[in-house]
């Protein structure tokens, strides 16, 4: 027999579970009381793979005759530049800065920077600093795909992204041009610099999963424990 108490209990448990599920999906940004940090260096393990040179076969007056191969940029000690480091299971931390403006430029037929982190809901300004037409072509499912022509008469295209995703972006007219847009739904994302170094700051203490992704070397996941007022060092090796 279904009693009133029974019904209330079922509803109550249902709401609790539902609330937990919902709260675990969305990231909650706010003030962080105790802060730790994660830092490290990303290096390549094993011999560096051979890279094909880019064919710069048109518009050489603007694009030059060669272009740097940015698919894998290694330091002298095999440190990896442009690897994207992010926490994948964090649900609470400092606020995501949606007011920040990300800028992606096209200069001498090269996207600058090669990897961009853009918060969900923030504006990205795409600039064309070249006197020739480029097109911005993104390949994404969770965000609306973009394919817009950008002649020299259209210096800026503004756009926003709505979902976390790693988005490859290229120009079709100049096939060697490519860049990556990392849409972030929380601020704990970093790009390794020329020395392969990264640092995530203001991380609430806890156990996290950290993913390191690189366009050429794939991805690696690490378990990280963050303690208050201390910097957890995590060396990372990526292998082809």
């Amino acid at each position: 027999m279904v009693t009133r108490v029974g019904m209330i209990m079922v509803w109550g448990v249902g709401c609790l579970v539902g609330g937990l599920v919902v709260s675990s999906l969305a990231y909650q940004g706010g003030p962080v009381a105790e802060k730790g940090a994660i830092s490290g260096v990303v290096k390549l393990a094993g011999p560096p793979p051979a890279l094909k040179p880019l064919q710069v076969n048109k518009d050489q007056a603007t694009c030059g005759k060669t272009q740097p191969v940015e698919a894998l940029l290694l330091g002298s000690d095999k440190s990896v530049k442009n690897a994207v480091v992010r926490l994948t299971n964090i649900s609470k931390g400092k606020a995501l800065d949606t007011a920040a403006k990300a800028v992606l430029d096209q200069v001498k037929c090269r996207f600058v920077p090669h990897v961009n982190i853009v918060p969900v809901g923030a504006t990205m300004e795409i600039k064309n600093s070249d006197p020739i037409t480029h097109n911005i072509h993104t390949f994404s499912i969770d965000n609306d795909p973009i394919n817009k022509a950008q002649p020299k008469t259209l210096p800026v295209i503004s756009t926003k992204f709505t979902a976390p995703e790693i988005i490859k972006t290229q120009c079709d007219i100049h096939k060697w041009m490519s860049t990556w847009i990392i849409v972030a739904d929380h601020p704990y994302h970093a790009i390794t610099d020329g020395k392969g170094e990264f640092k995530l700051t203001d991380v609430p203490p806890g156990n996290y999963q950290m993913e390191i992704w690189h366009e050429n070397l794939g991805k690696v996941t690490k378990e990280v424990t963050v303690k208050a007022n201390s910097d957890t060092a995590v060396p990372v090796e990526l292998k082809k």
Partner: protein
Amino acid sequence: MLFWSVSVGWAQEQGAAPRDGGAPSLPAASPQDIEAGKRTYQKWCMNCHGEEGDGAGPAADFLHPRPRDFRQGLFKVRTTKSGQIPSDQDLFNVITIGMPGTGMPGWEHTLTEVERRQLVPYLKTLSRRFARATAPPEPLKIGVRVPSSADSVEQGKRLFREIECFKCHGDDGRGDGPSAPELTDDWGAPIRPANLRKPWTFRGGHTAEDLYVRLQSGIAGTPMPSFADSLDNEKTWHVVNYVMSLWPDPNGHAPPLQVALKARRVEGEIPAQPGDAFWQKQDTFFYPLVGQVILEPRLFTPSVDGVQVQAVYNDREVAWRLVWDDPTKSMPDSGQGEFEDAVAVEFPVQIPTGAKRPFFLMGDAELAVQLLRWGSSSGMTELNGNGVNKVRPQAASSDQASAVGEFKDGQYQVVIKRPLRTLTPDRDIQFEPGRFIPVAFFVWDGSKGETGGKMALTSWYYFFMEPTLPKTTYVYPAVAVVVAGGFQWWAIRRLRQRKMDT
């Protein structure tokens, strides 16, 4: 609904009405509709588009462009803004009308309207892009039309260069731009920009409104971007008007097929240069080409889809001018497995007297053919064939044909000449005016690996050299009129005289 679908059918015939998204939206779908759509999909669509809609059905390997992979939710022909999903009406339209120039047929006459309508909600279950959309997509507004005029076309031509359409579509619009060879679609497969001079191959139709929408929205899943931010309403229409000015027929229809290629008799020397103004005055005949799929290596996706032919003859020789669009001038010495580009005109060695003709694919054991072949590197060769694997060039001493070929802006133009009669009728066809002589055409695009038996071809058509009427054709009737008239005049005069006498 019925009136609408009839008018769409009419529009398909006339090329007049736009497929805009302004038509009333389809009624909301029920779970039964989705289930029925799934059954229709499995019966009719799966063989190309795959069980899960991944575009990898058993037929997919034989098609270029490949069937759509629905999982990304990217559709080429939409009337919605760039980056947005298509409307239900857009999906319904493509199913109904099909996509010209591809393996996607129109299903209007195979599936009922209800069946086509039910496919739409099923298709939407195949990609999470549709589930993610919280609101219906925004349709593009088609602004007030700027009618075509010399000024508008001129502005469109200027814009074509300014926004750099030529980078992909080529200076002359034949899809031979510098960026064209490296273009790939969203799945990494090679894709060719449209040949703007062949509107009957445009995937989304070729009304002025269709072109407007493609420019404003782009073509999803391909390199064709949206120009909505760089072309306002007026400028978009200027570009549309310029593109439409490139067409052989203002309505965008493919040239009609004529079974008999007629050669006119002319007096005096026939120019050997394909660019000579003489050729502008000759009738043009158009022959569609298909891939050779009879003998291995079979070619299901030939590069060249048609050849234009003109033919004339004088008292000594016959000449054919062949013109076809090939976006890449093949460079056989590049060491990348490229072959030369080539064209061949084929005739039976003996003009048939009965119904029996040589096998059109380069002859058979019983009946031989002659091939007059021009190659972009090798020049003119005469060959005889008793089958595609038994083709032998004639000895150089008996070659009497000559040819001049040119390549410009994505197009080949070749003039081949041969004497009417030769001293070796056992291997050369002897041309006779007034006879229907079987003729067939072959075209090879060397940079796509087309060589030998791997090419685009036609089966037999007819070559007819219009006989000239002898002068006596006019003399005898004139004489007959004079004699008959004269006799009647004399007879009536005699009768009158007799009457007066009595």
